[in-house]
């Protein structure tokens, strides 16, 4: 087990810079999730760590070794791929054994470890099958097993659950979490699914267009998104982001007018999480106004209601069946303490 350190890593494919001057440190035994939209460079970052992509500049350290000139094989890490990358012509047992064979592990030892790994992942009955005869979840377990069996210093996961259906994804997510609790191997996990990131990560690192937007504990990132991008990306349903202008201490967008966090004239973005928007006007709220309902999505445990706010849309997530109809005007209220302010130009959080 070892810590992982990335210093000023830059990767370009031709003219296109995929990672720009990225730094990250992962402590020994930590589980860090890299999250971001497709094309943000998160998989490339993982492949830089694995050694499958050479960075144009920067340093990669695993433990106290600098590894960016080393072959993947010499970095003592294991990787789980999105499509499992099982060798189709090898049985489950042979797939598990392959990394050990390459390291010339003695036969008896090898067989013992294959058996143990298979048992720990519930694969004992499938050892003689070929990948083609396995279900997606089983293949995912084999891929995990192949990574586990080597006892590596570092685990890399490249969207390992994205090919699974929703139910299985939840099961495997839990399984990976348990696995990490048991082994405490330093792990870097890439996903585009922010809910996966929130539930799995000891820390999450949000990546956009080749740069880290924010690195922190999941709930911190959720509660205090550092940038407008993070605010919009983390959390479901996504935060309402309403651009407007603060002038003379007031911020106005559509019918909404409220005290601005600054007296200067400045273009700002107001962020409001949908679940912070309430219908009942009984309690004293800092912000309250009446808006027209434009769209209603009933999801059972909650109802998503869209209101027209000038030329923008404000979405509210209401508990249970809210019994709201399109076209109605409803009074809504938002707690002032739940507001997020971002600068429109830089995208940075104000407070």
């Amino acid at each position, binding site marked *: 087990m070892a810590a992982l350190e990335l210093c000023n890593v830059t990767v370009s494919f031709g003219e296109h810079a995929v990672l720009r001057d990225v730094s990250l440190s992962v402590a020994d035994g930590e589980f860090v999730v890299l999250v971001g939209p497709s094309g943000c460079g998160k998989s490339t970052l993982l492949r830089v760590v*694995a*050694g*499958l992509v050479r960075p144009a500049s920067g340093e990669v350290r695993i433990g106290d070794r600098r590894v960016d000139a080393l*072959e*993947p*094989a010499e970095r003592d*890490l*294991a*990787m789980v*791929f*999105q*499509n499992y*990358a099982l*060798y*189709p*012509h*090898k049985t489950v047992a042979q797939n598990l054994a*392959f*990394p050990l064979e*390459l*390291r010339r592990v003695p036969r008896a030892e090898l067989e013992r470890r294959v058996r143990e790994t298979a048992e720990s992942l519930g694969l004992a009955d499938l050892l003689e099958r*070929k*990948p*083609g*005869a*396995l*279900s*997606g979840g089983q*293949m995912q377990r084999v891929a995990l097993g*192949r990574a586990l069996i*080597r006892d590596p210093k570092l685990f890399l996961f490249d969207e390992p659950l994205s*090919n*699974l*259906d929703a139910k299985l994804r939840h099961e495997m997510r839990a399984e990976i979490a348990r696995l990490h609790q048991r082994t405490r191997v330093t792990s870097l996990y890439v996903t585009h699914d922010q809910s996966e990131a929130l539930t799995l990560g000891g820390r999450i690192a949000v990546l956009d267009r080749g740069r880290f937007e924010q690195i922190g504990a999941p709930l911190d990132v959720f509660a205090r998104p550092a940038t407008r991008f993070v605010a919009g990306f983390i959390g479901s349903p996504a935060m309402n982001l309403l651009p407007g202008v603060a002038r003379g201490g007031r911020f106005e967008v559509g019918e909404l007018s409220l005290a601005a966090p600054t007296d200067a004239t400045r273009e700002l973005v107001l962020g409001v999480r949908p679940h912070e928007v309430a219908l009942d006007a009984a309690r004293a709220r800092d912000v309250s106004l009446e808006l027209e309902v434009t769209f209603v999505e009933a999801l059972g445990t909650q109802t998503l209601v869209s209101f027209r706010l000038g030329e923008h849309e404000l979405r509210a997530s209401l508990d249970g069946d809210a019994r709201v109809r399109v076209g109605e005007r409803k009074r809504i209220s938002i707690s002032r303490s739940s507001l997020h302010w971002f600068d429109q130009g830089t995208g940075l959080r104000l407070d």
Partner: protein
Amino acid sequence: MWTLAALAALGTGAPYEGRTLVVMVDEKSFESWDVLQTIARDFELAHPGLEVRVIDQGGAVGQQDKSRFMLTGDLQLDVTRIDVTEFGAFQREGALVDIDAHLRALPGFDEANYLDVLDGFRAADGHLYGLPSTFTPYVMYYNRDLLERAGLAPPQAGWTWDDLLDACRKTTRDTDGDGAIDQWGISLTQWLQAVVPWIWQNGGDVLDETLTRSRLAEPEAREAFRFLRRLLHEEKLASFDATFENQYSQGLFQAGRCAFYGPVGYWETYRFKYITDFRWDVAPLPRKLHAATAIAMTGYVVPRTSRDPALAAEFVAKLAGPEYQYTLAEIGNGVPGWKAAALSTSFLNPTRAPESEQVFLDVLGEARFMPSLANWRKIESLCQAELQGALLLERYDVDRAAERMAAKTDAFLASEERRAAKPMLPSFAMEAVFALALIASAAAWLAHRARAPARVYARDERSALALLAPWAVGFLLFFLGPAAVSLALSFCAWSPLQSFDAVRWSGGENWARLATDDTFHASLVATTTYAFASVPLGLGLALWLAWLLRAESTFAVFVRTLVYLPAILSPVIVAATWRFLLDPDRGLANQLLALIGVEGPAWTRSGAWVIPSYVLMSLWGVGAQMLVFLAALQALDPTLEEAARVDGAGPWARFRHVVLPQLGPVLLFNLALGLVGAFQIFAQAYVLTNGGPGDASRFLVLYLYETGFRHLDMGYASTLAWVLFAILGALCAVLVATSKNWVHYAARSRG
């Protein structure tokens, strides 16, 4: 039709309206082509309404195969030109029309107008089946300057073997003193027709008078062989020319490095007219007990596929007559059969070497044709390998070789006699086999259909059948039917020059012959060696190239294109290119080897190197296989290799454990197709070595082709085809059976 008749009756229509004469006597590239066209137009003018269509006889490689194909295919052909050694075969197979009466009915026809060579196209009953084009007796060419320098007079008629021996001793020398002879007494020609005159001069013969027994093992013939061996090996006076298949060894003479060159015909004057640095001439062959020489000749004949034999015979006479013969004589094509042309200055041209053209006419009295046999070509090829050994190899038991030649010939002639006695099949037999095959396949399909479960989608089935029909019709008519006929023919004796009315039943004779046929065994060895060497090497190379070139760079795409290019070339062009590359003396391969101080082998002219040469050639064409591998490699999931890299696999381990196993199906595909292709190698060998040296490159398909179309034995050729089919079938069965152990088909995941 009635309108034509009416017009003719009115006397206004052309009497030959609607009639066509198809003439194929020369190659388009030949100098006389224009004159031939003029003659055709003249003939049309003399026969109003007639169309004379002159078609190209094809290149030298074709060896008159085109007329055989036209005969086999029952295509109209009214006049063609054949070699006199083939006349026996064509005439006995009923492939030619007896035009004797038509010729004699022509005004002014007189045998006395021709030189005394008409017998070449005269059948046993005395009837003329054709007239000579040009011919040549075999003579001896000599370098007058070399002889004079050695103090020798030019050879005169009546000179003897001893005179030749003496002259050779005096002219063979090492001129530059490096210990190797570089000026030879004689450059000997060594094919059977050129060797036979020595046997005749010594009182022997190839066959006895009944043409049923070989005389090659008799003392007269052996003595002739020994005399030649004495020149070649014991006294080393003759150039040892390994180019047996590449029969013309005129290079030495042309270079002024031998005193004599022969026995050889008039055709060399055409080549030697460019010699300017020494004087040369021709002399009769030296004599022993007798003066004797052989005649090579071609002539004009009327095949059985002629629609108008009388008119065709008239055109034959035209071609053999003055209009064409003077032209041929002036071109230097050979001695014209038309006597006046041969005696004119068109032939006896005083301004053109050789000075003594008269010699070609003088030796006619002692000149003979090869025995008129239905299968002279087969006998030539039976004797060829032994003859080569007997003459060219330094250590060789001549007596045993002569006995083997005689035994092979005798056995063959005996089997031919037995075949002639075999019962004829009814004239509709082959058609019946064809029909039976179609009926059987239809019945099999109907039976299968009856057993199949009830069809819900009748409409789907109808459209499926409609879509399949064009292919099915082609398959039945052009594949299944002919295949059935060929299977039937493998139990028969039949010449492709005949119609299907003349098929004889020979039972298992063709199949039994496989066991004792040395040529077949040699061809099996050659083919198998070639296939088992070229296919694995080719696959390995193709895979390696694909592996190297799979990157998507401009350079890789460029190199890929280069590597693939030869694969789209015709094998004939490939062979022609390699002929230059692998030429033992001037070829690029040996010149490059010489640069690094290696003396290159004789490649296609060496028995040991001819198969490696073909393997080399085949490797040049791996582009197609490379492309298949390339497609397969690019279709592979790259994350598997990445996973293997992370798992700790180096490049070789990744290739061996991850890439190669996934290529299994493609490997099987390329292996099966490669084997099938390799076993069918033909065109290169046909163009380049024609089976030689000896039988070293007589691949199965080449042997099959020769048997069917040169030796006119379609029954045995069919047997060979089925043997090939069985071999390939067995190989593919073994491949498929064993492939379960090494071919993994990727199953789709069931997520």
